[in-house]
């Protein structure tokens, strides 16, 4: 009875939302402001020639800074909830079939990542795409049973995770100390600084995204129980 009620009310809410959305998409007003044209006008001064990258790392770079912080928050929680080494089960053997394929694919993916990073300033691509490809390569290696370095509590791991943010912050605070607005790059250096940030972000995003996969708890139920008993 309760379930039916739940389904009915959920259905009603969803249908209402769908209808409302449908309606406003149909009668949408035309906005008077066009930020797109502002972007086009300011693009030459941004230090990059690809407009999406310009928005991400220059015009709205502050959004990106906070976004990196969001990623870091997730990574930190993952690290905090990571299994103790003793409780971790050995690497999977489930997807061994992928093995041969992966061995060839992984180096290729690293190359792709490098390309995407470099491409970002002039055409589609950039730190996020590059970083996620990097992470994807690591995940594939891991799934194929290979021992990829764990992203654990070591300083090296934490350093790699925060590398991008540290670089980003250095630039940000540097601009402030130079008397500029936050993340207001000097015109001459804009391109270089953006590339610097992106390169650092690529590594960190790759490491963080992989860590989110790698640090997902593996512990067996029985392990956890024995662990708890040990604690007592």
């Amino acid at each position, binding site marked *: 009875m309760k379930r039916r009620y739940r389904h009915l009310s959920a259905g009603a809410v969803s249908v209402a939302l769908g209808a409302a959305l449908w309606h406003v998409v149909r009668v949408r007003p035309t906005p008077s402001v066009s930020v797109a044209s502002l972007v086009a006008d300011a693009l030459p001064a941004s230090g990059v020639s690809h407009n999406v990258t310009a928005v991400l790392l220059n015009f709205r770079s502050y959004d990106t800074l906070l976004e990196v912080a969001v990623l870091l928050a*997730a990574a930190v929680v993952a690290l905090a909830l990571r299994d103790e080494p003793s409780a971790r089960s050995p690497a999977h053997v489930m997807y061994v079939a992928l093995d041969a394929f992966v061995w060839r694919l992984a180096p290729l993916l690293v190359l792709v990542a490098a390309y995407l990073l470099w491409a970002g300033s002039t055409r589609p691509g950039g730190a996020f795409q590059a970083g996620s490809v990097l992470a994807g390569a690591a995940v594939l290696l891991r799934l194929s049973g290979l021992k990829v370095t764990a992203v654990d509590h070591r300083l090296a791991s934490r350093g790699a995770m925060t590398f991008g943010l540290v670089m980003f912050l250095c630039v940000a605070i540097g601009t402030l100390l130079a008397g500029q607005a936050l993340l207001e790059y000097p015109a001459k250096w804009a391109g270089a600084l953006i590339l610097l940030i992106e390169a650092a972000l690529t590594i960190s995003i790759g490491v963080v995204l992989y860590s*989110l996969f790698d640090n997902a708890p593996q512990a*067996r139920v029985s392990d956890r129980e024995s662990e708890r008993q040990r604690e007592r």
Partner: protein
Amino acid sequence: MSADRLYAYVGAVLVALALYAFLVHTHVLRRLLAFNVMGGGTFLILVGLAQDGRGPDPVPQALVLTGIVVAVSATALAIILLRRWFATSQTTSLPEDGSS
């Protein structure tokens, strides 16, 4: 009708469908699927409507890129919590909220 507008409609349908799924499922993974679909629909609406009749707009595209990264962070966080919780509780469905 432009392609942009069409994808906005698709986004609207996806959002509605995913909202229903989110509300009726209790299994956390299913809710995460619904969350990601809903995100996709929202992104389609954001880009589709903004570009409708005005050509490509880098601003919403950049926003969606941010949104995608945020979504994967949230999904990963949820999965980690779920797996840790599952290890002790043996369930994957959340206790009833009484709210949703």
